[in-house]
């Protein structure tokens, strides 16, 4: 781990202060803003961990819903037998193991097969859980706890900080360097001595674990867990769109995508309740056409044009 430069220290302090300010949201803002805050925190965690993997490797994973759903069920089932704080690490481990298995099975495949495999994964896991539910006779699971929106918000904020820290550490580690090389040219990476499959699988475990933990955190919010709501493919696509809107080039890229998208979603839901789906579709199209590189690309281009020196 190369030593921390002055700039690194400055960034760390800035991030810590920003997190401190956002943590006070429950007191400064009303319940409605808090619920939006929870949504933003959730998507930030999911999109950032997603782009940790897809940024360098250019693999589009649509498996977020599968890991998230498993996470909600870990809390749903576990809450009756285990103390709550043990459920998050358990969900993380299960998510990581699942991601490793998926990685082992599919990362040899070319891009589009990986995408479809991960899309099918959520459906596959949903069928298995429904069948399991059917055999064991358990129906929808009730998660009746005293956990409120504020607790959920803080947990997500903590997880977001963890994900950024992890992303920052990986970026500076051998694994991060290896992934940047793989992203540029996988053949060169292999011939430089990098076990590309192992690196990708290791990295895919990060979004796997993080999405599962997020699911476990949000389960108490939904009170009633059933397969069709926990595994909806919609979540996977939203995470991809927001990450791409923000831009996967930088660690803070997805955040820059999540915030405007959430408020856009709100604005559309509020002003066009009957045409929400129609207009969201139009927004997706606009994002894909006008912002191929996302806001990060936009900001970098602007910076180049202004000829601003110094490092981002």
């Amino acid at each position: 781990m190369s030593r921390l430069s002055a700039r690194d220290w400055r960034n760390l302090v800035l991030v810590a202060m920003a997190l401190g300010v956002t943590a006070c949201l429950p007191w400064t803002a009303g319940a409605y803003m808090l619920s939006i805050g929870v949504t933003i925190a959730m998507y930030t965690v999911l999109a950032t961990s997603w782009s940790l993997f897809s940024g360098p490797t250019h693999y589009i994973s649509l498996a977020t819903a599968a890991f998230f759903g498993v996470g909600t069920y870990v809390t749903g089932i576990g809450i009756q037998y285990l103390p709550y704080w043990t459920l998050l690490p358990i969900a993380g481990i299960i998510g990581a193991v699942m991601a490793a298995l998926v990685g082992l099975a599919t990362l040899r495949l070319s891009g589009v097969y990986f995408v479809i495999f991960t899309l099918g994964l959520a459906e596959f896991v949903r069928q298995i859980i429904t069948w399991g539910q059917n055999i064991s006779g358990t129906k929808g699971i009730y998660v009746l706890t005293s956990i409120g929106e504020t607790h959920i918000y803080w947990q997500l904020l903590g997880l977001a900080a963890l994900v950024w820290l992890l992303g920052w550490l990986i970026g500076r580690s051998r694994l991060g360097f290896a992934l940047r090389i793989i992203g540029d040219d996988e053949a060169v990476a292999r011939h430089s001595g990098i076990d590309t499959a192992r690196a990708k699988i290791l990295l895919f475990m990060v979004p796997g674990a993080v999405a599962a933990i997020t699911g476990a955190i949000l389960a108490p919010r939904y009170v009633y867990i059933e397969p069709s709501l926990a595994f909806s493919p919609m979540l996977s696509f939203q995470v991809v769109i927001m990450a791409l809107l923000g831009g996967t080039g930088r660690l803070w890229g997805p955040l820059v995508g999540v915030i405007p998208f959430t408020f856009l979603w709100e604005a559309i839901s509020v002003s066009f309740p009957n045409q929400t789906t129609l207009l969201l579709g139009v927004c997706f199209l606009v994002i894909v056409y006008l912002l191929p590189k996302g806001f990060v690309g936009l900001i970098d281009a602007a910076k180049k044009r202004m000829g601003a020196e110094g490092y981002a």
Partner: protein
Amino acid sequence: MSALLSLRGVTKRFGGLVAVNAMDFDVAEHQVLGLIGPNGSGKSTTLNLISGAFPVSSGSISLRGQPITQLPAQDITRRGIARTFQLVRLLPSMTVLDNVKAGAVFGHRRRWGREAETIAEAMLEKTGLSGRGHMMVGQLTYIDTKRVELARVLAGEPRVVLLDEWLAGLNPTELQEGIRLIRSLRDDGRTIILVEHVMDAIRSLCDRCVVMAAGTKIAEGTPTEVLSDATVIRAYLGDDDA
């Protein structure tokens, strides 16, 4: 002296086509071996078999007596065989220094942090790129990109260096500079396998040569021996004026 690298009956089939047919040869420590032959004779394919880019159909390759035939490319590189590519392949999103560091961090001698930095800078010196570590690879001239690739290979301190037509495409002055560079590697005692068409490089650099035609070995020996051998000339220049 025992062979550092030896090929026994190495064959490669692409469906019906036999690209390499039962190749046998050895490379001794500190030896510079030239692998020559007309286009399509299987030179590059043999190099790809040694470096693990293609899986071997049959036969065996061993390094210091240990078989490396079925190993994936990354393990072969880690065991100490590093290669350049026929068409230069660099990492576009990174600086020259980082490109070279890639070899230092993941190659035969795995370094990290300060150590990797020093080795990378040393290799930049060695290949004549000193002071250009911070430049982006997109800004380099053609020969400089070749230097970066060579520096990356050397940064891993490999046992055997595979140069796949490294001198191809250089103008006369760059060619002399290139040959001088490879000779300096030779003088350092590095073991090199050279796939080349540039004959005066072969003559001045190689201790031994293996000549291939249509996937098989047709001659082996010192450069002067093989280049005066009738079958080699016929293979290169075709039958009519032999």
